[in-house]
């Protein structure tokens, strides 16, 4: 979602993005002319008249689970966004029975919160798991 019109979105898709990924952008490219939606989400920069790089993960109940906001010159890490969605999905599936430690990736160890785990994370989890393999 940006302050560009849907016409500009179409031309950006046709002239540039579709050439980068060899197909059309698969998701809707939303238009927020005037920045009304960006203002509500706290990412609209009134001085520049544009939305900054805000990224929100919204769960199936419509609840915001995570967000990240970057200034314009730095691009996002898509893998990290997907990792977070997978982690939130796991937590949701286990109804909070399992939680994902720092650096968790699918297949890596989760933790099961409970009285027995208090003060004992050091026995269950190694800091090396916080980093990429």
């Amino acid at each position, binding site marked *: 979602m940006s302050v560009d019109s849907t016409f500009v979105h179409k031309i950006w898709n046709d002239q540039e993005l579709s050439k980068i990924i060899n197909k059309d952008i698969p998701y809707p490219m939303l238009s927020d*002319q005037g920045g009304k939606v960006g203002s509500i989400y706290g990412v609209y920069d009134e001085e520049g008249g544009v939305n900054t790089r805000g990224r929100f993960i919204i769960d199936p109940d419509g609840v915001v689970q995570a967000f990240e906001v970057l200034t314009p010159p730095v691009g996002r890490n898509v893998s990290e966004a997907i990792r977070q969605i997978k982690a939130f999905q796991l937590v949701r599936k286990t109804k909070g029975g399992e939680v994902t430690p720092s650096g968790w990736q699918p297949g890596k160890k989760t933790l099961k919160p409970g009285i027995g785990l208090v003060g004992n994370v050091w026995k269950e989890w190694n800091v090396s798991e916080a980093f990429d393999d």
Partner: protein
Amino acid sequence: MSENMNIGCSKPSASINEAEEANKIITKEYLKEDKKNMIKVGKPAPTFTAPAYHKGNFTNVNLEDYKGKWVLLCFYPGDFTFV
């Protein structure tokens, strides 16, 4: 999920969904001057309806139609902004 839209010269613009009472309250909170009202995790996302370009069509997208799905909502400064 989305509805097709007629193309005209008047610019369609996004709007916050105001029909739903709960969303009115959520959005009002976020529009207060007080910066403490920045979006909070664990709270409902303000819903909106926005015009969109999607695979060859101009459509209207309502966030409420995505209930039951995971949504990744991305804002960016502008088309053609390189990164």
